[in-house]
C-alpha cells in the first residue's frame, strides 16, 4: 500500500488514536491481511510505535499478519452450535480442505477459521463463507457447501 492510501484511511476515520483499529480493519479488508509495510507506514503516519500496532494486530481476532485465502470459511463454535455438533463440522471441513483451524490451503483458496457465535443460534450448526451464512449444516453436508466456492 502507498503512503497516500494510508493517509486517506486515517483521515476517513477521524485522524486520531481511536481511528487505529478502524484503519487496520480497512487494510485487512483490502489486502486480506496486515502487510508489515502497511503497518510501518501507518506507524510513521500516526507516530505510534510499530510494537503497538503489532499488539493490536495480535490482540484482535479479525486481523491476520499472514495472507489469507480467497475464501474465508468460518465455522461457528458458539455454545448452541457446539451442543448441536459444531466440532464435528469443523473437523470434517478440516479433512476436506486438508488444513487445521487457522490454516490456509496450499493453493491460497480457502482459510479455515473458527468463530465464537455468529448470532444464528437457532439454525446451528452454522458455517459462514465470506459474506454468506449457511445454517443447519451437518458434517456429511459440508462438501456441498464447499463446492459452491470451488
Amino acid at each position, binding site marked *: 500500500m502507498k503512503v497516500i492510501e494510508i493517509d486517506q484511511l486515517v483521515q476517513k476515520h*477521524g485522524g*486520531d*488514536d*481511536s*481511528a*487505529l*483499529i*478502524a484503519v*487496520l*480493519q480497512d487494510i485487512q479488508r483490502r489486502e486480506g491481511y496486515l502487510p508489515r509495510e502497511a503497518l510501518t507506514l501507518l506507524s510513521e503516519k500516526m507516530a505510534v510505535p510499530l510494537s503497538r500496532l503489532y*499488539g*493490536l494486530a495480535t*490482540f*484482535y*481476532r*479479525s*486481523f491476520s499478519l499472514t495472507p489469507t485465502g480467497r475464501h474465508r470459511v468460518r465455522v461457528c*463454535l*458458539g*455454545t*448452541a*452450535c*457446539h*451442543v*448441536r*455438533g459444531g466440532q*464435528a463440522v469443523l*473437523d*470434517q471441513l478440516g*479433512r476436506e480442505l486438508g488444513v487445521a483451524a487457522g490454516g490456509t490451503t496450499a493453493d491460497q483458496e480457502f482459510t479455515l477459521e473458527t*468463530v*465464537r*457465535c*455468529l*448470532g*444464528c*443460534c*437457532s*439454525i*446451528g450448526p*452454522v458455517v459462514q463463507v465470506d*459474506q454468506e*451464512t*449457511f*445454517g*443447519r449444516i*451437518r*458434517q*456429511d453436508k459440508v462438501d456441498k457447501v464447499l463446492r459452491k466456492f470451488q
Partner: protein
Amino acid sequence: MSAPSPITSAKDLERWKEEGLRSLAPNTAKVSVGMATCGLATGAQAVFDVLTEELSKASSQAILAKTSCIGFCQMEPIVEVYRPGEPRVLYKEMTAEKARELAADILGGKVNKKEALCTLDGFPEAKAGKTISGIPRMEDLPFYQKQKKIVLNRCGRIFPDSLAEYIASGGYFTLWQVLNNRSPDQIIAEIDLSGLRGRGGAGFPTGRKWRFARDAQGDPKYIICNADEGDPGAYMDRSVLEGDPFAILEGMAIGAYAIGASQGFIYVRDEYPLAIEKLETAVAQARSHGLLGKNIMGKGLSFDLRLIRGGGAFVCGEETALIASLEGRPGEPRQRPPFPAEKGLWGKPTVINNVETWANVPWILSQGADSFRKLGTQTSKGSKVFSIVGKINNTGLIEVPMGLKLRDIIYDIGGGIPDDKKFKAIQTGGPSGGCIPEKLLDLPVDYESLTQAGAIMGSGGMIVMDEDTCMVDVARYFLDFLKEESCGKCSPCREGIDRALEILERICQGKGRTGDIETLESIGKMMKGFSLCALGTTAPNPVLSTIRYFRDEYEAHIRDHKCPAKVCRELIRYSISAKNCNGCGACVKPCPQEAISGAKKKVHTLDQSLCIKCGMCYEVCKFDAIERE
C-alpha cells in the same frame, strides 16, 4: 419524503406518521419477507426473488417488502401476507416452490392455509382482528402466548430502513415530547423509578448510572451503546439492531439529553455485518432529518454518534475494555473505581449501556415508569429478551416479563425437547453463567434467583441441553472459549483458566485423578476473589455449577473413565451392530479413515485401530446399525 429536511414540529411528525401508516397498511395486498440474518441463512433471498418475479406479473398490484426477525427462528424463512380488511397471515418454512404457490394464491385472492403458521394483529394498531378458520391466532400459539413485547415490538413488523414506519409505530414522538416538556432530571428520575436494570448482564440500575454521569465533572460527556454481543448463543441485540435500529438512536438521544452528552458511539461486533449496515442506513437518515447532529428537532440538543466495528474480542463487551478499544488500545479492562460514569472514555464521564437497555428507554418514557414496574418481580422489573436455543423444539427469540418460570420457558414456549430426549440442563448467562438442572426449573427468571442458583441472567442467552450433552465437556468448552478470550493482563484469570482447562481436558480424555474436582473448586474460588474484571470472576461459574449439579458425571469420567452422555471421544467406542447392519455400505465412503469394510449386503466391520471417533458413520447410517457406547 426522502429529501433531507429536518423534522422540527409535531406537524412534521404527523406527516411522517401518515406516510408510515400508508406503508404499513396500504390499500393493496402486501407481502413482507423476513430478511434478517437467520432468514437469509435459511434461504429467504430465494423466496424473495421468486415473489419478486411472480408478484410483478401484469395483473398484480401487490407490494413486496422486506422485514426482519419476528422471533420464531425455528420457522424461518417467514413471510407475512397482508390484505386490506383481512387478518394478516404468517407463513413458515418458506421455500422457492412454496413461494410460487403462495404468490398464485395471493394473486387469485385465495387464502393459503397449508403453510400458514398463524394469523396476527394489525400493526401498529393491534385491533382484535377477525380470525380465519383453520389457522390459529398468534396469541394462541404456545411460542407467543406468554410473551410481552416491548423491545421486540417492531421486529418483524416494519421495514427497518424506513423512518416513516418507525415514526408511524410511535417512534420519535417520545424524543419530541422529552425535548419539549421534560427536564433531564425528570428523565433520570423516571428511568430510575422504572427499575430498569442494565440488560447486558451486570444488571446495574440504569437510572443510577445516568445520575452518576450527570453529576460527574468533566466535559465532553459520552454515550456509548455496547453492541458487542459476545455471549455464544445470544443474539437478541443483533435482532434489535437489524430490526429496529432507530429505537437505539432515539434511546441514545434521550440519554444524551439526560446526562448532557454531545457525542456517542455504537460499538458493534465485527461478526454482525447486516446489523452494521442497518445502523448505517438509519444513522444517515436520522442525520438528514435533524434527528441526529446539531439542534435535534429544532430543540437545541446537539448529539451525534459514530459507528465503530469491534475487532473481534469477547472481552470488549466488558465496559472498560470496550472503552480501551475505542481509544485505539487492546481491549484490556482496568481497575474500577473510578467507574466509567465518572471517568470513562478519554477520562470523561461516560454512560455505557447495552442495546436492549437503550431500546427500553423510549417505551418507558412514553408509557411511564409504572407500566414498566407492573411487569416483573420485586427486584427485576420489566420484560427481558431471551434467546432459546440448543436442544429445544421452538428455537428463537422471546420477550417475557421477568419472573416467568424456567419450566414455562422450556416446555410451554419452547415446546420441550426434540426427539423425545430427556432434558438435562439449561445454561444461562453465556461463559459467565451456569447450568441449571431439572429440579430447579420452577425458579423464576430474575437476576437474584439465577445468581443464587449458581448461574447468572447475563445478556439472555438460554441454551437447552439434553441427555446427549456431557456436562464435563460443557465446562471444558467454556474454559476453552475463555482461554482464547482472556486478555491476559491479570494472573488469577490468565493462569487460573489455563490450569483449570488442563485439568478438564485430562478428565475428558480419561486421565482424571482423585482430587481434580477439589482442585477445580479451589482454582474457582481464587479466580472469583481476585480477578480484575468480570470475565475472570465469572469464568469459574460453568465449572462450579456443573460440579454442583452434575458431580456424578465428573466422577464417572474420573473414576470409571466413562462419559455417560457418550460425547468425550477418548471415552467412547463405535461399533457395528451385527443385528441391524444390512451391508448397504453407506458408511464406507464417508469414513475419513477408511476404517469400515465389508461385502455388499453383508454385515460390515469397523477397524477400531483406525477409528478416530468422528461419528460420521453414526450420522449417515439409516438403520441404527452403528452403536456408540
